[in-house]
């Protein structure tokens, strides 16, 4: 086990390196450098040249490349056009996105796994048909459409929940400048009014994004449970008179978790994309929101910094998934 862990963790380095290289190349496929591409027609050449020099874009590309790598590794992700440190932006807004993602994922798992399990057990029954349909529709409805409907219903019609933001403007002043994991902050501080406010703001975005993932989870669990239930060892267990409930949970479901976890890990990308859209819809101060702004302002350096972080996150998630798999499945470790 230990040997596997060490080898796997070491693998992170080349993976990160490859992804960062891809990011670097992607943002320079446009002819010239990011600054010229962004502002080429809008600034006098002298100003352009000055900016390019300041950002180091007039040096040979190899030098730029290694500079970039060095900077990322040391945590310097550059500055935005407004002069903010990109690292700071990632910390503050990235944590807001993290909070949203955690609760969305939790929702998806809590709702999706039991439904998927029941569908897989009683295949083609009434529950299965409705469960599948539910999963298909929640995936088909774009996040921004669902969000829209929820806002119409819960904010406009019923007035129960706020339509946007992470926290009410009245409490905005109390938030520190650090990571915005407001739910956990309020929980630890024992601040009940703050907590309830945060929760009210959290519900709609988390459920909207969560429903998207729920569709994926239902389909995933269902197909894998169906597959494992057909397994030879399941038949052998039944032949030994093992109670059906245990056969389903301990043999079929537990074994289905391995491929489920693997594919779920790949959904981190889905979660990130979905959160970008959710943040737009609900004006959630997350990293996706910021990314869109930077893209619109053609602030390529900031975009490069943020996407670099995404790449690293993806690699780390993949590492975690592999570790979980190694815990679940003894065959992987050898």
């Amino acid at each position, binding site marked *: 086990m230990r040997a596997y862990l060490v080898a796997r963790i070491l693998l992170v380095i080349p993976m990160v390196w*490859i*992804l960062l290289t*891809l990011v670097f190349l*992607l*943002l320079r*496929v*446009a002819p010239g450098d990011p600054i010229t591409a962004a502002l080429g027609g809008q600034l006098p050449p002298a100003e352009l040249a000055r900016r390019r020099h300041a950002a180091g874009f007039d040096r040979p590309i190899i030098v730029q490349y290694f500079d970039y790598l060095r900077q990322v590794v040391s945590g310097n992700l550059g500055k935005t056009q407004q002069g903010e440190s990109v690292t700071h932006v990632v910390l503050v807004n990235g944590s807001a996105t993290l909070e949203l993602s955690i609760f969305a994922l939790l929702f998806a798992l809590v709702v999706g796994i039991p439904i998927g399990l029941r569908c897989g057990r009683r295949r*083609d029954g009434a529950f299965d*048909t409705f469960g*599948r349909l539910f999963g*298909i*529709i929640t*995936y*088909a*409805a*774009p996040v*921004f*459409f669902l969000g*829209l*409907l929820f*806002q*119409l219903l819960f904010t*406009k019609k019923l007035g129960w929940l706020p*339509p946007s933001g992470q926290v009410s403007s009245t409490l905005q002043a109390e938030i520190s400048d650090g990571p915005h994991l407001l739910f956990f902050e309020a929980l630890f501080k024992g601040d009940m009014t703050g907590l309830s406010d945060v929760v009210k703001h959290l519900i709609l975005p988390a459920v909207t994004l969560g429903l998207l993932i729920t569709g*994926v989870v239902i*389909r*995933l669990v*269902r*197909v*894998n449970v*169906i*597959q494992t239930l*057909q397994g030879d060892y399941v038949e052998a267990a039944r032949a030994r008179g093992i109670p059906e409930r245990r056969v389903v949970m301990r043999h079929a479901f537990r074994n289905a978790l*391995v*491929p*489920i976890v*693997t*594919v779920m890990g*790949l*959904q*981190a*990308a*889905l979660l*990130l*994309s979905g959160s*970008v*859209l959710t943040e*737009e*819809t609900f004006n959630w101060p997350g990293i996706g929101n910021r*990314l*869109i702004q930077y*893209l*619109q302002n053609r602030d390529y350096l900031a975009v490069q910094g943020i*996407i670099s972080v*995404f*790449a690293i996150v*993806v690699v780390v998630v*993949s590492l975690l998934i592999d570790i979980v798999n190694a815990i679940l499945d003894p065959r992987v470790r050898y």
Partner: protein
Amino acid sequence: MTANVGSAEVGTTQARGGGLTRRLIGPIREAHGLPKVLLWVGGGLFAVFVICAIFAPWIAPYSFDATSSGGKQFPKYGHPSAAHWFGTNVTNHDVLSIVIYGARTALEVVVLAVLFSVIVGVVLGLISGYYGGWLDRILVLIMDALFAFPYLLLAIVVAFLLAGKVGGGVMTAALSITVVYVPQYFRVVRNSVLSAKQESYVEAARALGARPRTIMGRYLFGNVIQSVPVIATLNAADAILTLAGLGFLGYGIQPGDAAEWGYELSRAVTDAGAGIWWTGLFPGLAIVLLVVGLTLIGEGLNDILNPVLRRRFGRLVVMPARPRSQEVAGDVGGER
């Protein structure tokens, strides 16, 4: 992102290659029960949109960018009425016409995107799987990286890079989406090829001196072809969502060029605050129904073609009454 319907991805029956009929059309005709229902409902929904797309100029009451008709100006934010079934939006356009023309845009983009992805992905997968070596390794690395990347961001970046170069929103959008889905086909096809390569009939073909092109075309292609339709329909469903996402964020089709549902929804977000629901509901429903239709087709196909999900037994059997028990006779001088 297509969840690839779980680990099983899409299974193939490893039989001799070739025989499109035997592999695809045959099983589909034989299908019964739920998968058939899925196919019909999905196919029906999809057909509705195809009809809208093809016959838009005849079906839609007005053009998607018309702000008046017969000399009469359209109202701004007009409620759904006899003249405007789905109402009008903030720029005085008829929502129903937008929805119908939007179908045309969506299908144009998605058909192009899926076609490109399939061609590029399948060809690359075949070559990579068959030849192996360093080419394979590099391609796998690139594809895995693309696959792991958030699809929307990838599409946005590509849309950016292509903006203005390929001309016309439709092509740009289609190409951005292509980049996102090529890795899926590549991966599935490559896996298919790798397992098919081990089969004895491929070894035999090589021993007989068949050219790589022949082997790939005749033997490997047939195995691969079975998994593509399911993935293609599910990818098409995804592509519609990606297109809508791009439109929502403003990176898709420009509003003047064509009607696009995602873009309409981005404007509808502010409308919701004022209680105006029809500008968002109808385009949104259109997206949902088209995606559901395509997904149902894909799920139905998967139920039929995927050996893991196929139901060989399971029909209820009603047995006729037991025939009278036969008496065992003694050995009454029969022949030996």
